[in-house]
């Protein structure tokens, strides 16, 4: 039987997926699997977790708050900064310093990029970044990794095809960096305007990661894929609306395109989806995006306990 809450590890902030070593990622995966078996416990009994949402994100907030509640912790915080001193012009530093007096852990989402890193440097209380602008969202990456692990039974040597908005989609960038520990291969499928940025292509080159780029989203690309990671192509990302009209339907997935795919292949999407995955895909056994979102609960429970420095022996 596992013994819990020895508190022998140092508390630590989780700001960026790049802060986590391969071993730390694997440890979080094992812990997520543990919590999937036992989502309810009293591990956080007596702990107060602050959820500070400087921009609204109902999905992420509910997932974090459910994670805390199921572990028996208490929650303080806000879901809308309009009702806080931030709207009176209080600095981020002052808000964090104030909340750090009350909470054992701060989960924060902010519209400014780097806000969580800054917060983690002005308080001893560990910070979990629940998204800072277009920058990092490590709990999304952890739930993606956990979903890959669950569906493929491994993280090593996975072929991932990323489709849609590869330029602005932070989820694809973070996943790419996390999978660099695990000899992944990538197919990047996007139009010119939303191509994988140069800094990430250079990252692949530097780390010896094999990748192929393609503008055509075809069943052939899908055929050798283990994970098909779909993202939404957003109209507001385009400077040229004619270009948007031209490409908006080129990166949509339909059930018929999955015929040639491996049986073990799974379709992931960070959600919300609009029309980039047709409704008929939902009935395919290869559709995994709803379970993927549920995995977020366990991944976040693992991150919360790790940030608090709890030693949970599995």
């Amino acid at each position, binding site marked *: 039987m596992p013994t819990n809450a020895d508190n022998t590890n140092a508390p630590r902030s989780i700001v960026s997926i790049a802060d986590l070593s391969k071993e730390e990622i694997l440890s979080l995966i094992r812990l997520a699997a543990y919590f999937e078996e036992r989502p309810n416990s009293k591990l956080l009994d007596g702990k107060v977790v602050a959820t500070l949402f400087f921009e609204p994100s109902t999905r992420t907030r509910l997932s974090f708050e459910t994670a805390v509640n199921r572990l028996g912790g208490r929650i303080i915080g806000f879901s809308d900064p309009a009702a806080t001193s931030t709207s009176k012009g209080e600095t981020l530093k002052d808000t964090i310093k104030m909340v750090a007096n009350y909470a054992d852990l701060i989960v924060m989402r902010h519209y400014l*990029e780097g806000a969580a890193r800054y917060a983690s440097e002005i308080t001893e209380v560990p910070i979990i970044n629940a998204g800072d602008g277009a920058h990092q969202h490590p709990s999304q990456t952890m739930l993606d990794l956990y979903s890959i692990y669950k569906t493929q039974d491994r993280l090593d040597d996975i072929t991932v095809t990323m489709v849609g908005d590869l330029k602005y989609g932070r989820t694809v960038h973070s996943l790419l960096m996390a999978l660099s520990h695990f000899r992944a291969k990538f197919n990047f499928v996007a139009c010119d305007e939303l191509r994988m940025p140069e800094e990430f292509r250079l990252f692949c080159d530097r780390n010896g990661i094999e990748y192929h780029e393609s503008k055509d989203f075809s069943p052939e690309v899908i055929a050798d894929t283990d994970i098909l990671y779909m993202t939404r192509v957003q109209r507001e990302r385009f400077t040229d609306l004619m270009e948007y009209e031209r490409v908006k339907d080129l990166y949509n997935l339909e059930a018929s395109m999955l015929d040639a795919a491996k049986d073990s292949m799974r379709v992931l999407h960070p959600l919300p989806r609009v029309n980039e995955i047709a409704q008929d895909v939902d009935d395919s056994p290869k559709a995994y995006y709803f379970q993927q979102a549920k995995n977020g609960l366990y991944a976040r429970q693992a991150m919360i306990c790790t940030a608090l420095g709890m030693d949970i022996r599995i």
Partner: protein
Amino acid sequence: MESKNKELAVAALRNGTVIDHIPSSALFKAVDLLGIEKLGVSVTIGNNLESKRLGHKGIIKVADTEFPPEVLSRIAIIAPSAVINTIRDYEVVKKEPVSLPDEITGLVVCDNPKCVSRNQPIPSRFEVIDRENVALRCHYCEHELRGDAIILK
């Protein structure tokens, strides 16, 4: 060094600092960075001088002043090719290229308008990721800056 520049018709320095091999385009930024305007000592500034290495170069001679290393390392951001000569009693006692520090704080503006350093009262902070080609990465938002994207405050 001093003898070569006699043809520039500028007085030789008895004591002070000569910053040489500054790209012409960066000369006045370098003047600004060193805070020369506020110094009460004699200063000679030359620009668009012929240079074998750079084509055209700028040079700054500041009398009776030796700059601390952290000030000189700022020059490396805009003029990585610059060379610092320290003059004592008409002799060049030290001649060394500028070198970038590992970290640059409060000097460069992050080019990401959504970076926390642009929107909260905190100094910008960059890690130097490529000394040779001068590339910086924002400590906060991790945007990488190179070349013209590096804008001094």
